[in-house]
């Protein structure tokens, strides 16, 4: 291989190392962007939906207490608002199933909510349920706690997945940064190696050759440099040695 190709190979390798590191970093950074979006789309939306459902449930529970106290108008109004809010949250959670088995958790919420709904769908004011706190604690409140528990479970699996995605983001960030660090260290080591080879195979022989020719001019002593390679430098050394040899014995 000629000198030109050798030097070119050195620069090509250096450039390749940096280029690939750059490409991988860009790819990983784009992935980070996707992951952040995924984090927001998949998990944050579901967590927000479960939060809405929990708030709605609390309102409905307050509405039931108002009905228990005989306040029909305010009670129905608060329950209606709570029910609308719950359905809004539920629809959001139902349309955002991204975790394995999440559909089962959503289904459980739906079933428990149906049971809970039955406790306040029928009239309370003006019936034997009015002022009946035993009924409230043994029926309505238990159903309320059950549906709340199911919503919390849905929230927890989304939080867990969000944490995992967050940890994955940390890894992705490392994967984006590390190729750059490796490329920088690699480039420094490679440059040192490259300059060592340039010095050993090109500069040192040139210096020795120059000294040898100067010595020949002043003392007539023949060149004693050995050529290690068969490239242009090796051929140059051999040619000059032959030339000086011929000049000596002319």
């Amino acid at each position: 291989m000629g000198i030109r190709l050798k030097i070119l190979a050195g620069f090509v390798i250096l450039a390749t190392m940096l280029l690939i590191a750059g490409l991988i970093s860009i790819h990983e950074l784009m992935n980070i962007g996707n992951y952040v979006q995924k984090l927001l789309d998949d998990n944050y939306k579901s967590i927000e939906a479960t939060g809405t459902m929990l708030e709605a449930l609390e309102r409905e529970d307050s509405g039931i207490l108002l009905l228990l106290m005989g306040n029909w108008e305010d009670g129905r109004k608060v329950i209606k608002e709570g029910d609308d809010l719950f359905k809004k949250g539920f629809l959001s959670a139902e349309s955002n199933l991204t975790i394995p088995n999440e559909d089962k958790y959503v289904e459980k919420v739906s079933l428990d909510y149906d049971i809970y709904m039955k406790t306040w769908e029928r009239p309370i004011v003006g019936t034997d349920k009015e002022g009946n706190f035993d009924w409230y604690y043994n029926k309505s409140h238990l159903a309320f706690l059950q549906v709340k528990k199911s919503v919390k479970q849905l929230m927890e699996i989304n939080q867990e997945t969000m944490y995992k995605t967050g940890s994955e983001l940390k890894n992705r960030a490392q994967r984006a940064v590390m190729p750059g660090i490796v490329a920088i260290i690699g480039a420094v080591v490679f440059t040192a190696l490259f300059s060592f080879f340039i010095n050993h195979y090109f500069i040192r022989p040139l210096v020795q050759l120059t000294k040898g020719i100067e010595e020949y001019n002043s003392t007539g002593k023949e060149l004693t440099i050995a050529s290690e390679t068969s490239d242009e430098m090796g051929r140059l050394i051999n040619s000059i040695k032959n030339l000086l040899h011929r000049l000596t014995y002319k």
Partner: protein
Amino acid sequence: MRIHVISRYVGLVLLFNAIFLFLSFLVSVFNSDAAVYPLLYSFLITLLFGIFPLIFVPKTDFISKEEGFFIVILAWLIICFFGILPFILWGGEFTFTNAWFESVSGYTTTGSSILTNIEVLPKGLLFWRSATHFIGGVGIIVFAMVVLPNLGHARFVLLRSELSPLAGSNFKFQTRKVLHILLYVYGGLTLAETIFLHIFGMSLFDALLHSFATIATGGFSTRNLSIAYYNSPAIETVIIIFMILSGMHFGLLFATITGLSFNIFKSSVVKYYVFAMMAGIIMVAANLYIKGFYSLPDSIRFSAFQVISLGTSTGFANADSANWTGFARMILIFFTLQCACAGSTSGGIKVDRIIIFIKSIKNQVLMLRHPRGVFTIKIDNNLIEDEIIRNALVFIVLYVLIVFLSALVLASFGVDSTTAISASAATMGNVGPGFGEVSSMANFSTIPDAGKWLLTANMLLGRLEIYGFISLFMLKTWR
């Protein structure tokens, strides 16, 4: 010392590593896992660094003994550094120190791990982790030599630098043949074990990776519970057989397979190796049974696996020996120090040196009775030279001293004494697990970072048989 020539040979070793990185990359692509880019980039960097010296440095047939030594030691250190690339690029539990620990542990076939959860690693990375065992098993240099044509004297020098000094004298073949023997035996055993493990229920992937670890006497498993995960006496039996075989001199194994007269059945070293392990198994099993740990069959099953695993410096586990009795653990520590035969992939003091040590004691006693007597040491009718005897004895003393000193330093980092001593002995002998916090079912994640660096130095010292590593720091005396 010709640095450019050394760089060429180290480059060749890096190219050999690049092949395995590429295979790991393919595994990753096939499984569409998260290690694709880390492995691809590691492969390219290793490839570029491996190719570059070949472009500049012309081929040379002659390398001096010093250069040979330097190539071997430098190659070990450099591949360990390149081996960390997939780990640090992937992230997870791999900080720089952890990646270095895992890489050195893999190449030196130690099998100690810092991972608290191995099963979350992508398959490509698991393959690479086990491939480091495979590469390190016979030795990078030996592999590189096999694939390099026409190296002549250079090949001889590198081989002698790589092989254990004791093993070299046991190979009664030409250099070229020694290389082929190593490759045939190594490859053959790996293939055979993979087939058997697969037949007995392991997935092909797990079977291959466990075979890499067994034949290299490494110990990296793809499961957090190591071999205990499979809970299969059949799989354990297969691994036991291949661990015993991998702990024997490869030349003798080759001689046995090819029907030569001097084989494993006639070697007194092998006889001692097998006898010592049998005795160890019986003592541990009896102790565990009497103390009520397990039923008799289970006592035999667990003690056989654990004694052979540590006695061959493999480090697999089918039970948590950390809770066993002090007596059982002391026997296991003895095997952690002794390990298997020279000429195998095993680490530790090695059976050959223990035999020399025992015979030297016997001679010393005889000398007391007959002060003017001349006593020699013979193994299999071969007279052992005084220099080899002296080296073996100094080696044992130095070995135990280093184990003790590194345990002392570990203890100064706040590590408890059981963990410190066993971790030090297990890494020095390239065994893998110790006791305490680093027991067979635990890992080295709790060891402080400085301790991890110390233990990796132990692994390299053990792998390069102390003298090789020390020689690196005595370059001036070579001139």
